């Protein structure tokens, strides 16, 4: 009778989720202290946290069956604390991403495989969804997940999964001074794809120094929208894309490619890899009046 209770059914479902996701959760041995975890993104590609990959060679990955594989670094995105490792031969059973975005209150499991003794898991909920946030590593994370599932030692690089064992995010303690966050799977997969292709994340480069300044009501009405602040250019690098396009010290940037820009984080967020090499309209206030300057965005080195 009690065997058929719904609590037991939920329990069995979570065991199945751990089993499903655990098959794609691998041990990553790339630092001196405790090994960390990684997610099989493709049969021969393992996505993990950049901060747990302390070396570029003599990296090993342990599969759930206990076999050890040599791996190399296929690419790194230190700003978002992600690294992609490549196995010598296709070996891993691939993780399945969740079809929809995480929601606050959703039941989730954090998984890790920091030891050969088997998969480890903790239970919690999605506590909050935040972002964009400037990471402690100089990146800008568009979105992040916070959970109350316990991040055990060595869980960095491992998955946060839903009750069907599908990947909701990648756990890491490397983004926010040791506090555990998860990078949403859509973002992590997007970065993994770019790392697989280029080995690094391409970011746009403008070549300006700026500071946020308030926009007067008169200037806002000239813009035709409510926007409390913009970015005053206090420096334009010589030979930079900004100079080439004709941006001047004293201009106040208010939008890039049609998207309002009110602070340095929004400027950084607008300079994605996709705009590199593209002629991009930049709206400024010059002498108090709106003007649009076209700049061909460069690539950040």
């Amino acid at each position: 009778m009690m065997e058929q209770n719904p609590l037991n059914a939920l329990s069995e479902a979570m065991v199945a989720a751990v089993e499903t996701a655990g098959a794609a959760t691998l041990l990553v041995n790339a630092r001196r202290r405790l090994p960390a975890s990684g997610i099989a993104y493709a049969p021969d590609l393992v996505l993990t946290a950049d901060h747990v990959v302390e070396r570029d060679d003599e990296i090993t990955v342990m599969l759930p069956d206990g076999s050890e594989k040599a791996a190399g670094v296929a690419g790194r995105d230190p700003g978002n604390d992600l690294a992609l490792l490549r196995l010598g031969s296709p070996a891993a059973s691939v993780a399945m991403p969740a079809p929809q975005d995480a929601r606050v209150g959703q039941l989730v499991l954090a998984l890790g495989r920091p030891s050969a003794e088997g998969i480890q898991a903790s239970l919690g909920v999605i506590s909050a969804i935040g972002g964009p946030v400037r990471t402690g590593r100089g990146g800008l994370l568009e979105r992040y997940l916070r959970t109350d599932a316990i991040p055990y030692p060595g869980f960095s690089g491992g998955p946060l999964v839903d009750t069907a064992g599908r990947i909701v995010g990648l756990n890491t303690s490397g983004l926010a001074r040791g506090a555990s966050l998860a990078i949403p799977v859509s973002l992590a997969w997007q970065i993994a794809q770019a790392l697989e292709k280029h080995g690094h994340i391409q970011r746009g480069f403008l070549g300006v120094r700026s500071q946020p300044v308030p926009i007067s009501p008169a200037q806002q009405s000239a813009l035709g929208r409510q926007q409390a602040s913009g970015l005053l250019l206090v420096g334009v690098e010589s030979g930079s894309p900004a100079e080439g396009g004709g941006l001047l010290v004293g201009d106040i940037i208010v939008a890039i490619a049609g998207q309002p820009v009110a602070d340095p984080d929004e400027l950084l967020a607008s300079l994605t890899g996709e705009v590199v090499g593209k002629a991009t309209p930049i709206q400024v206030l010059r002498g108090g009046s709106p003007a649009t300057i076209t700049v061909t965005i460069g690539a950040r080195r």
Partner: protein
Amino acid sequence: MNAFDLTNWIADAQVEVVQRIQRSLVMVHNGRRGAGSGVAWRPGGYLVTNYHVIAHGRRHHVTLPEGQDLPARLVAQEPEIDLALLQVEAPHLPPALVTDSRGLRVGQIVMAVGHPWGQRGVVTGGIISGLSSAQTQGKRGSVPVIRSDVVLAPGNSGGPLVNAIGGVIGINTMIIGGDLGVAIPSHLVDLFVSEALGERMEVAV
């Protein structure tokens, strides 16, 4: 079925599981300060608790679920895996349902029931986080342990960790296995009790 009905149904089942184990849950006093938890394991008032709960004590006594306080006799002890067997004159104390811990899997829902900080019958929930081993100081060297993400506190020691049907899968201890709480698997506990009671002797050879 809508989401509200489902969560209510799960909650009701959870309450039933807790009520089932609380009928077999006792509080163990060692005649000094502090108290631990214990659980009825065999008919005839046989109770399992942690060795460290009763260690150095003299006049052990036990509070039953209904509040009755009885003197307890120490039947057996095994410090290496932090277990002790007590007996009280409580012939009607129902033994807990015991589930064999050899079939456990990571992810299973579990609840710890005990008396953390002396508060009676407190329930904390979580899942099995890991099935591993812990080093012991003795001839065994290492023993299998159940790790969970359940919050444990002093006073939970010696109390049961139960699964989603209310079966005892382990005895909580905070002594071995480092700073995180672990549970001694029920199959080890059952072996300890069987040997202490000479149950194996009854098997004809």
